[in-house]
């Protein structure tokens, strides 16, 4: 029986890389909790979301293997993020100038 295998197998990341990413994720969580305790006024939300964005990017790039995946995956993700951004921006334009 013949098998056609497209991709996989050659993408192997070592355990230690994953553990290192996890340490960074927990560190960023500690950072965001600490920063929340400091009064930054209007910047509190921006900083918290920025840290959340870094954490999500780490999970997507390493845990979800996107760093090693074919370019088409990155194109897909860019399109969905752009779609979400358009929905948010249009709603806020509507809400602000109503």
């Amino acid at each position: 029986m013949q098998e056609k295998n497209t991709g996989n197998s050659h993408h192997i990341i070592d355990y230690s890389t994953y553990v290192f990413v996890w340490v960074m994720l927990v560190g960023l969580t500690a950072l965001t909790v600490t920063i929340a305790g400091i009064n930054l006024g209007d910047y509190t939300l921006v900083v918290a979301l920025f840290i959340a964005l870094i954490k999500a990017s780490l999970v997507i790039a390493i845990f979800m293997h996107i760093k090693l995946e074919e370019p088409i995956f990155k194109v897909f993700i860019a399109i969905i993020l752009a779609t979400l951004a358009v929905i948010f921006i249009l709603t806020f334009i509507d809400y602000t100038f109503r």
Partner: protein
Amino acid sequence: MEANNISEHVTHRHRDDVGAKLGMWLFLFTELLLFGGMFLAYAVYRMKYPQQFHISAMEMNTTMGTLNTIILLTSSLTMVLSIAAMQKRNKFLSIIFLLSTLFLGTLFLINKYFEWSHEISKGIYPGSEVLLSKQNGEILYFGLYYAMTGLHGLHVIIGMIVLVFMLVFVINDNIKWDDYVKLENAGLYWHLVDIIWIFLFPLFYLIQ
């Protein structure tokens, strides 16, 4: 010659891991749009009632939220380690990491249960008299809190059911070191659930 080609064609087993993963990602995008709509509602109402959102968030137990964040992040680690172990042909370790992921998912849900019961015991739940006597922004905050963490919790439960199936597949060699795209796709789902929590946590627990 021709006959040979045909017989080869019949026994040819098509396998497309990239296609399987792309399909999973497309599904994840629909999940993202589902949660995106709720995040949008949250954003608009928070802009409208910033003070009342702050007052409501004081009710939240930040320690509990932080603990749950770390539990879920760790479960993502054990999930990806289970795939890595499978790649390295270590079935036993893969099973151990899958079991750890299931254990951490259960821990997350137990914490969530205590958190919700604490709020409910104070009379704060959708439609309760205590909640309805509060201001509009506070009612909206708790409505969004229950809807979003509830939907997220549902996803954790679904993810755990999927992982139980994966565990069975790994045990009876349906998932092997050279064919593990099912395990990878289950992992993608689990990580998406983690990512959603990464955003829910600062939005509901870290408003000072």
